[in-house]
């Protein structure tokens, strides 16, 4: 019950379109590391990590020169980002860098200002979330990502709302992927543990078998021993062919797991490269990964 109440409070906080993550106040004190390294501050481009933010080949998700924010407040400027078919991409960066905003902008939940948002070769800018889901993108928001009063099964059913009938085989597939959910299918999602809720949320986003799954901080709020477990599950989702675009606080682990990583600072692209290259890059380590 107390968890429910806490959720309710969270939800009200969530009504504020500006997430703590992206709030301008967070912007001010966001890069303590940058102060220690004048190189980052003066905008000199550190050499090692890549500064080309686009892919040469085809990408299923293409963002070009994207400007977006909330109301009059611009958070993102000139963001370039690609996700190839089946690719696993993470976005890392300090608080207030606009990581979650990128994701919400793909889903049309922010104020679009300028630039290109393309999915599978077509612009998805201006589409309603239900249409974007139909195009093949699933989204797992950060907090409050289950319907607490609905059973596990009902939560999954809601993920396939746009279909005419409940896709039983897809529900079975998700139960196979997360067996604990089969055991708990009649239980209200609000009574589940944090890890189980995260499974419900992912299962719901996978109901339409999306080509691209957006994950906003999947490890947030999980007990440390469950975090590796969660990353394993994401690996397996990606292995089965679904492209993943993930925002993570747990930057080291995320970069270790992903194919490519984007480092965002102040709503702009800073570095882009393969995960292990970013992990190995001295500037990236010093500035964003705590040495």
């Amino acid at each position: 019950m107390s968890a429910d109440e806490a959720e309710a409070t969270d939800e009200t906080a969530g009504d504020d379109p500006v997430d703590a993550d992206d709030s301008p106040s967070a912007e001010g004190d966001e890069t303590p590391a940058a102060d220690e390294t004048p190189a980052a501050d003066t905008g000199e481009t550190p050499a090692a990590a890549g500064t080309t933010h686009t892919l040469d080949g085809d990408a299923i998700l293409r963002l070009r020169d994207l400007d977006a924010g909330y109301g009059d407040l611009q958070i993102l400027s000139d963001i370039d980002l690609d996700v190839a078919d089946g690719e696993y991409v993470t976005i890392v960066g300090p608080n207030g860098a606009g990581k979650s905003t990128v994701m919400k902008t793909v889903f049309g939940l922010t104020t679009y200002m300028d630039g290109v948002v393309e999915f599978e070769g077509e612009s998805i800018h201006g589409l309603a979330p239900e249409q974007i889901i139909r195009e093949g993108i699933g989204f797992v928001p950060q907090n409050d990502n289950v319907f607490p009063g609905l059973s596990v099964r009902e939560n999954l059913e809601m993920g396939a709302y746009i279909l005419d009938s409940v896709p039983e085989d897809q529900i079975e597939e998700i139960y196979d992927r997360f067996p604990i959910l089969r055991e708990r299918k009649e239980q209200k999602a609000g009574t589940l543990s944090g890890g189980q809720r995260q499974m419900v949320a992912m299962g719901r986003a996978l109901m339409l078998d999306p080509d691209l799954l957006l994950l906003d901080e999947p490890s947030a709020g999980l007990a440390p021993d469950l975090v590796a477990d969660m990353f394993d599950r994401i690996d397996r989702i990606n292995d089965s062919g679904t492209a993943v675009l993930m925002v993570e606080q747990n930057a080291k682990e995320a970069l270790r797991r992903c194919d490519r990583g984007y480092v965002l600072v102040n709503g702009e692209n800073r570095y882009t490269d393969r995960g292990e290259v970013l992990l190995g890059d001295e500037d990236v380590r010093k500035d964003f990964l705590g040495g």
Partner: protein
Amino acid sequence: MGTTESSIVDAARGRPGLLLVAFLGGLLLVDLAAKLAGLSLGPIGGAISADRFGSNLWNGVVIGLVIGLAGIGLSMTYSILSFANFSHGDLLSTGAFTGWGVAFLIAGFGDIPVRSLLTVRDAGGATAGDIGAHILSTPVAILVGLLAAFAITAAVALALDRAFYKPMRDRDGISILIASIGAALIVRYAIQFVYGSDRRGVTASLDASNLAFAPLGLSVNAHELTIVVAALGLMLAMHFMLQRTKLGTAMRAMADNKDLALVTGIPAERVVTATWIIGGGLAGASGYLYVLLRGTIQFDFGWLLLLLIFAAVILGGIGSVYGAIAGGLVIGIVFTTSTIWIPSDFNEAAAFAVMITMLLLRPEGLFGGVSTA
């Protein structure tokens, strides 16, 4: 100041308040038992018969079901659209006048001008008794009237949404609440303009209409029985819709978390439309049934009833459909049984006293935290 206030609240929330309420409740029960036994221990009210107590309870259940039915829509719009809809009471009036217009049209067609029938008016010396609207003599008219009340009020609620609430969808709850007071005034005076402001009789009185339940000593009116059956039927249908259909699940999902419903792909506007149709329709049906119970109609009765409906919904835990039904029953029973101790002029006060006591002891209401489920 602040500490004193919060310590009072704490005390009321904790055991002392509960003890006090339990003590007073116990006193009332003992006094009630004594009154039923024919003794007059307490300072207020004399002895009562078991029959009278039984009929008090029964009347409370009947009025409670009507209030609970009306509360469902209020609770739904609160949980799904996040505002307290002050035009809800006038939706009851809308349903009552339009529904009874249709019922009169069917019951009295041919004898009395259609215009008078549709405006629920006595015309040219004909009275409500002449039209003879009664569940026993004109059952079809009464039932079609109920359906019409549901359908027309649903349409009116939907029209109000498109005109006022939809353009304000992203505004805060207080702004929409104020707008709903405006909508309430528009509806109320539109009703007064069309139907007039006089209170008038609607149903015919039939001598044979009382069905006695001898073992319980209850004398049950056929209209009361109609109300109970209709209200329970609508509540059951509502329960089935919420728990077993995709639309109902989506309503519960939206009540739980609107932002998540959006990114899950639930078409919010379609769910909102369904919410108005069902919530408005139930309000219209309950207004129609309220008139069937009282036998009279007046343009502002829904508005006057709104406070009791709010009390029921808050008592039950605002946002919960089942809470609205339970709260309606509690309010209804308190409303009628309180007359054992106090004059019936004060029975609304008793209903609110129970609501306030309840909120002090359990601020989230009977079904609090269980949104629409």
